[in-house]
């Protein structure tokens, strides 16, 4: 029973988190997951995805979801 949390790029280095699992209890939204993992409020420039779909801070999360956080993308 867990939510998988992933971080990429500068967030991965800043928080030293590539991939961790967190208990889903008490976590209702993407913003809740971020606060649980970092102890801080989700900054507006951080992008998120739930199960590989772009999400917003208010997107609901549930057990076994994969929640990812990353900075603005810079491909191409």
């Amino acid at each position, binding site marked *: 029973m867990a939510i998988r949390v*992933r971080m*990429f*790029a*500068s967030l991965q*280095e800043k928080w030293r988190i590539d991939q961790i699992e967190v208990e889903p209890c008490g976590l209702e939204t993407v913003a809740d997951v971020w606060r649980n993992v970092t102890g801080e409020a989700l900054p507006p420039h951080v992008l998120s*995805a739930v199960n*590989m779909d*772009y999400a917003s801070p208010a997107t609901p999360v549930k057990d076994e979801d994969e929640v*990812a956080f*990353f*900075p*603005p*993308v*810079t*491909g*191409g």
Partner: protein
Amino acid sequence: MRVVLSSRPFDPWQSVQAFQAGSLQRGSYGATAVFVGTMRDFNEGETVDSLYLQHYPGMTERELERILRDARARWAFLDAMIEHRVGGIDPGEPIVVVGVWSAHRKEAFEACRWIMEALKSRAPFWKKESGPGGERWVERNTPG
């Protein structure tokens, strides 16, 4: 439509030629628009020695496929492809190629440019540049 992530250098003109030969019917398309993004040895006033391109395996491919589907919902093109590098890249090496085949030029031009802008703003890739001053994550893409 085809999405390829490549961890090794590729020749974009060969990729385009091979996709065209394998996926398009000869005589069916009148217009092909291609964009290639290449790693420069210089960015924002600084020398760049190498680049590392991180991606989100699974989501990156999905998002690129969604971008091609979204483009096809807007323009009546025949086919399209994206090939994108991941991992370590040296100056002069191609990073991305986008190709669009259509009957007439308007659709190919517009869809190709739209796909590149969507890729730049939506596809989960992150560049880290290494130069004389050390390493730094690129914070945002230049506007199109």
